[in-house]
């Protein structure tokens, strides 16, 4: 296993790699612009947005924030232990990271089920169009992130090791990106209208 570290002080080697950071910024700008569009739309229908926001369960949103933050913490620990060449511990924390992601998806599914049962679908009103598009797009990122982490986990488990530190850090950066996006979505969708 290659655990040699790059000098992240170089502009060309941010932690996770420059290509991953270009992706992160593209994603942040995409979600950011969509959220700004949502806020602009709320000016035309303030009552609709306020009443719709009250139909969301902000406790679910807060618990999901805790799940993702905790998952991010485990991911950071996993990377640190891999740098210390403690593969077993790194693997354990990676498992906990994935557990956090799975719990997020379980709670999101419960939330979605309630909304669909209540008829609060994509076409219900402008607020719920944004709610579904933004949160579903984020959920897709979480699922992709879990697949990426699972591939890394399999790589760590193999004796010869097919995971190198740069790949692992890039995967971790992608996972943290899901966390960052949620930290923007949660206050705007669940709290401020």
């Amino acid at each position, binding site marked *: 296993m290659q655990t040699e570290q790059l000098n992240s002080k170089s502009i060309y*080697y941010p932690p996770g790699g420059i290509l991953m950071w270009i992706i992160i910024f593209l994603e*942040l700008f995409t979600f950011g612009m969509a959220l700004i569009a949502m806020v602009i739309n709320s000016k035309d229908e303030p009552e609709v947005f306020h009443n719709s926001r009250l139909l969301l369960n*902000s406790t679910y949103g807060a618990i999901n924030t805790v799940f993702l933050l905790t998952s991010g913490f485990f991911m950071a620990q996993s990377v640190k232990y891999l740098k210390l060449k403690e593969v077993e511990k790194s693997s354990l924390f990676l498992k906990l990271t994935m557990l956090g992601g799975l719990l997020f998806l379980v709670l999101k599914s419960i939330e979605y089920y309630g909304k669909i049962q209540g008829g609060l679908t994509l076409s219900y009103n402008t607020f719920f169009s944004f709610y579904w598009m933004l949160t579903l797009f984020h959920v897709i990122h979480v699922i992709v992130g879990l697949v990426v982490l699972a591939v890394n986990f399999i790589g760590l488990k193999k004796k010869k090791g097919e995971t190198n530190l740069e790949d692992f850090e890039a995967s971790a950066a992608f996972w943290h990106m899901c966390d960052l996006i949620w930290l923007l979505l949660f206050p705007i969708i669940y709290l401020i209208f």
Partner: protein
Amino acid sequence: MKKKHTPYPSQEGILSFLKVWIVLIVLTICTALIANSTLLYSSTVLLILILSVVKFLGVSFYFMELRKAHIFWKISVFMYALLFIVLVYVII
């Protein structure tokens, strides 16, 4: 381009993540409490946005280790977060 290498991290760094995680969880609880408070709407929105950006920067600078990166990346993330809350606050 030749790649430069740095020494391995210490166990100390691992403990610092725990402190950051505790701060992030406390900030999340504070955000939930403020959202249910009886403060003025504009103050509530501003506080929620500021706390969210602090959490955003906490994750990017500590968990993603951006604090060790080149200043270009630090400023880019900081400016993004700042621009985002300013735009949301001005529009809303």
